[in-house]
């Protein structure tokens, strides 16, 4: 397992500077909560780390190498989930899950798919078109994906949005298991996640 290191990252949107000189290290087995008021750049920070947005300055280092150089290696080890869950309305919950995993090179058996959808409470509606699912149920497809993916680093943007209390504790369980296995996570959230201790990165408005 590799460590994620952020060195003096800076990003602006148009004329307004969102953040600058953000540095932290995320070792395996730990998670960092990115906090800050609305509009402080939490999503942008996560997108910069994931490699979607180009930062104005600073570098992201994974396993000792800048991610701009070891792109494929970093992307296979990293799982990003943004505001939009990437779920296709026309496909069923099971197909969406299978597609999302296949994109990352995993080919789980039908049995494993059924089991993981069952464990997030979607067993009965796994063959329903996703357009009929609620926002929380879509989030739960995302949780089933987290459970099946072997990524070492999770980058999650507000993963608790639209989840009920049961879903929140389920997510805390998933995160705990991930950290115990030596995984790490960078999570933008306003909530506490279970009783898991986290380092914090605070962004000022």
């Amino acid at each position, binding site marked *: 397992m590799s460590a994620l290191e952020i060195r003096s990252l800076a990003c602006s949107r148009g004329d307004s500077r969102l953040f600058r000189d953000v540095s932290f290290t995320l070792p395996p087995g730990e998670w960092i909560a990115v906090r800050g008021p609305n509009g402080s750049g939490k999503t942008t920070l996560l997108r910069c780390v994931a490699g*979607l*947005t180009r930062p104005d300055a600073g570098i992201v280092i994974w396993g000792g190498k800048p991610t701009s150089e070891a792109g494929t290696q970093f*992307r296979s080890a990293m799982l*990003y989930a*943004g505001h939009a869950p*990437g779920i296709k309305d026309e496909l069923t919950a099971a197909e969406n899950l299978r*597609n999302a995993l296949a994109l990352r*090179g995993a*080919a789980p058996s039908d049995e494993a798919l059924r089991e993981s959808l069952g464990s997030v409470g979607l067993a009965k509606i796994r063959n329903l078109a996703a357009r009929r699912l609620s926002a929380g149920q879509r989030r739960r497809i995302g949780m089933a994906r987290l459970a099946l993916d072997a990524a070492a680093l999770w980058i999650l943007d507000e993963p608790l949005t639209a989840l009920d209390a049961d879903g929140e504790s389920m997510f805390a369980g998933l995160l705990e298991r991930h950290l115990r296995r030596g995984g790490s996570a960078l999570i933008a959230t306003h909530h506490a996640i279970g009783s898991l201790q986290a380092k914090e990165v605070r962004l000022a408005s």
Partner: protein
Amino acid sequence: MSGFAWAFGRDLRLAWRHPGETLMVVAFFVLVASLFPLGVGAEPQTLRRIGSGVIWVCALLAAFLSLSSLFAADYADGSLEQMTLSPHPMVGWATGKIAAHWAATGLPLTILSPLLAMQYGLDAATLGTLAFGLALGTPLLSLLGAACSALTLGARGGGVLLALLALPLFVPVLIFGAGAADAQASGLSPSPHLSLLGAGLIVGAMGLPPAVCAALRIALD
């Protein structure tokens, strides 16, 4: 599974689940191509003269119709981010999406074209040349259209902008495609036109996917 196979399979499955778009493209093609004989008059000489050009313009406009949704739906629901952050190289899945777009629009148009062209009284050899020209030209339309569609992604008024960008780029394809059928109809060899179309397709297939990727990166930034 490669990125190409993943995107190709997924987009074809989506097109199959949601056939409205393909059907709309095909219906547009059939309707517009059938309106011309009604408007121009049923004089065989005139129809034979304009036939291949009309079919080509109709196919081009029909292919254009479906372009706006090529990347926009994936952009809106977050799939595009997931594909960009997958371990697969971007060129692979972007090409897969373009290939699926062609299979869902360009291919049905190509298959239908000889049937529609029969309304214009074109002879068998010209029908064949027309279909062959479309088989070479419609993938190129999908490639050019994908680049324009990626460039206008996220822009306000993207639809009009897309028309302004894409339609002028389609002009050479139209000229050589319709030119091949015209040459055949007037007893000349269509091969110069077809060779140029084929060369265009090869250059497009090599050069345009990286351009699409660059445009998608800008849209996601």
